[in-house]
């Protein structure tokens, strides 16, 4: 589905040049659940940014279903994100003047064949909260709205950057359960960035990063369910 070859990303601040990605080569398959693991500064967020078209690589190739993303201009990248990608962040990033339902509908609005917003909210267990504003929801509920917003447009890939980083264990497992269901029942490819090793047990493959390089790719033969994930 996505193939990265020798991807380099360099940041230049004044005379100082920092290589955030030092020649990454990686393939992500359709319907796969990948966890990118690594300490702070290992380049995992940068990797997510370049894969998802949020940022452009300094060198290398990124192909999505055979199409070279590095040739895309800003408008084409926007269209690519619009048609194929979904995002879930540590910060829930909800629009505060809109209700939970309207936040989800914001995602549905840019899709040609979206899922039913209310049904998706029901799926994430927020049937009773559709008309509530973000400030009236708990952190976990807000994150579930954020997931629903990303899923409603039926993305091919869902990128999650520390999706449970701001949640306690119980709520985090609920959110992970939803992601798991999306992957298994709807076939959504999942790319999850985390520093929580427990979450990696749910993935098909674990990409370990360090200092801008892929240190190791582990194929997880014994996937476990969200509720079984060890925490802490």
């Amino acid at each position, binding site marked *: 589905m996505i193939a990265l070859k020798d991807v380099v990303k360099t940041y230049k601040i004044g005379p100082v040049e920092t290589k955030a990605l030092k020649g990454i080569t990686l393939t992500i398959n359709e319907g796969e659940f990948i966890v990118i693991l690594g300490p702070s500064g290992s380049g995992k967020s940068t990797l997510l940014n370049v894969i998802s078209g949020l940022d452009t690589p300094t060198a290398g190739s990124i192909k999505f279903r055979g199409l070279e993303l590095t040739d895309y201009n800003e408008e084409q990248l926007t269209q690519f994100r619009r048609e194929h990608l979904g995002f879930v962040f540590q910060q829930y990033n909800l629009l505060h003047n809109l209700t939970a339902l309207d936040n989800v509908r914001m995602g549905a609005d840019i899709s040609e064949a979206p899922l039913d917003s209310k049904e998706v909210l029901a799926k994430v267990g927020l049937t009773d909260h559709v008309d509530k504003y973000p*400030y009236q929801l708990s952190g976990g509920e807000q994150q579930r709205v954020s997931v629903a917003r990303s899923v409603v447009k039926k993305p091919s890939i869902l990128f999650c950057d520390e999706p449970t980083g701001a949640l306690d264990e119980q709520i985090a497992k609920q959110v992970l359960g939803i992601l798991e269901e999306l992957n298994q029942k709807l076939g959504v490819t999942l790319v999850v960035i985390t520093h929580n090793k427990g979450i990696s047990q749910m993935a098909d493959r674990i990409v370990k990063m360090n200092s801008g390089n892929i240190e190791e790719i582990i194929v997880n033969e014994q996937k476990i369910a969200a509720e079984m994930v060890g925490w802490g």
Partner: protein
Amino acid sequence: MKKTLYNNVKATFKSKWLQLTAIGIIIMMSSLIYTTMSYSVSSLEMPTMAYLEEYVQEDFSIEVLEIMTVQELLEQHIKESIPPGIFTLNDLRRYDQALFRALITDRIEAVENIYPYLELELRELKQFYYNHAGQNHQALLVKDAEIINLSYIEKGIKPEQDHEIAISRIYAKKNSLEIGDTLTIEKADYTISGFVLFPDYTFPMFDNTFLIDNSMQTLILTTENTFQAISGHNIYRLSGLIAEDKKDDFKSQVIDTIYDQPELDFVLSVVLTENQMRSGAIYDELKGGRVFSLGFSIIIAGIAMVMVSLLVHRILKAQRAQIGVIRALGYKSKEIAIPFIIFILLLVLPLLIVGYFIGLLAAGPMRDLYLDFYLLPTEALYQNWLVFTTAIIAPLLVFVILSVLIIHNMLSIKPLDLLNPDREGEVNRLTRTANYLLKKVRPKTKFKYLYILKNSTKFFAFFTGILFSTILIFIAFAMNGLVERMTTATFENTEYQYQAYIDITKGLPVIQEDQEKFLSYPNAALGKISLTAMGLEIDNQLYNLYNDKGENITRKIKNGVVVTKSLSIKQNILPGDMLDISIASRTYPLEVKGITEDYSADLLYFEIEALSNMVTGGKDETLFSGIYTDQKPTGDFYAVIIDKEAIADQALLMQRFMDYTVNFFIAISCLIAVLILFVLTTMAVEDNYYNISLLKVMGYRKKEVNAMILDSYLIYTILSFLISIPLALIFLSWTSDFFTTNYDLVFPFEIRLIQILMALGILLAVFFAGTWNAKKKAAGISLQETLKAYRE
């Protein structure tokens, strides 16, 4: 560390320099407008009040019949002394000065006998046109008074020789004339001996038309001989003073009773000075000038204050974490607050002072602009503490107090709470209501309209500012063509070039083929209202009447009367109404057949034969008082010849001035609106910094994001535009009513559809100019911003 605090605030303010500059211009404008208007008005007010008292401005004036009453004509000494055909005061004066004087003395005594607490004096004036530097100029010759409305020589001396005249200073200035120069009137040369003012003409409105251009018209004082020698249209009225203890009762004791006195049937109207445009408009102008300057500055300063408050609040919000750290380190709130207060003072104080001094410089030209229209004495501009305090200290205090309150509010939060990211606050009631109303619309549309309501203060500043600017644009447009409608619009539809009044004492002229007769009867009455009746030939070619649809309605005078629009508005007359019109002591019920689109005078149009019959009591249907012609008439038969071009020339200059005013108002309005939109939409982008990033990440296109963030401003701009239309119309209607009620003057303000569209066009251009920076800023927001954990 303290220096670091100052440097930190300095850097923050520096990063907002563009928004601060825009707000700064608004702050400066508030101080500038107030100072300009205050000093220009006060430099006129004090000398004017002293002059009007010292030179005995009339308390009221009485307009009198310009013809002799039946009673007067039957007086033995008049009956025996004058030949038939002489019935106007003008004719009598030309025929026998002594008889005229005696008649006027009788009229004055008749009034003073009934109202012994009144003191009256005849005011004699003569209106005429003359050619100066190739243009037609107008003059009002004023006979020197002895008791009331005394002539005030501003510079030079009163005319002592017959070849000397005194003129208006502003007319001299605009025509580059000096004392000692010569002015040629009717082929005779007159030396200017001085510059003169008259208390009953503080505003140069010589007749009912609104020709007030002091570059083309002047008041003139001459010797008695010269007054008699110059020919023109004579005007007679009685100027009056009221005993001090009776001033409050004047309306009930005089105005309400004078028309019922049979001995005073020559009285046409009694008007208090405060209701007289030519003498009393200055009082409202000075009062209005003060109210306008204060009101205008308060609105602008208010908008600036809201914007400064918003900016300070936003700066503090952005510095939340730093403030938390500094407080955690043990700094006192006062130590943290002082750098902010000092920088706010450094921003506001110099701008208020700059505004004040530019205002002081502008006060002179502004006063001169007043003096372009008002005939008043003036004195040098002196600064005073009250204006200084109001222009600088008062707004400065409000700015500082507001800022202190906002800073205090932030500093009252516990250091630990400051260190945590600010959770978005609750959704206010306005947002919830709007959300409910918009429940059927798409969420991105909803987002577009709702986020602006989140901060009601910002919304209020934006909406008020745009509303204010748009109303100003509409008022400016409504003034467009005003002078033309009040002066020459009627003439433009007529074909004549000259209007000539015959001199009855010289006999009747033979009417040429290209000449058409008219009969003017200045003393017709509708109830207690005195009007001029005009008789026209029904099939005339030179003076046709047109209604508001442009249809020729001249033939409608056949079996009724046509009235001017001005009269119809003042008296609420509609076509089909029956009017009881008194002419020469007889009353005729006449149907209103049409209304002619003429705002320049209150006239009743008749068929000339019918009017002649009414004036002569059915004895003569051939009477006429003058002719319309396209060739200048020759011979001695005509006392006054009015060239249509003379009026057109004056109106053109007036309209040009009005056009400048219109453009100035539009420019000021646009500037205010651009600045408001610039600051607030830039703030909107900053407020939605992370939302914009998120929307981009989600896949919303640039155009869609801009629309979501900025289109709401466009929609609310259009909404405020729509609201401003009725508000501007109400304001204009109120202004028009004010002048009609107080000064008997109709201001035909007009806002046409094309002007509404033009105003919308201007506003849209202003919107795109004002939001340009915001769009640029929105485009520059990176997609990774949405990933940040701590958000400033």
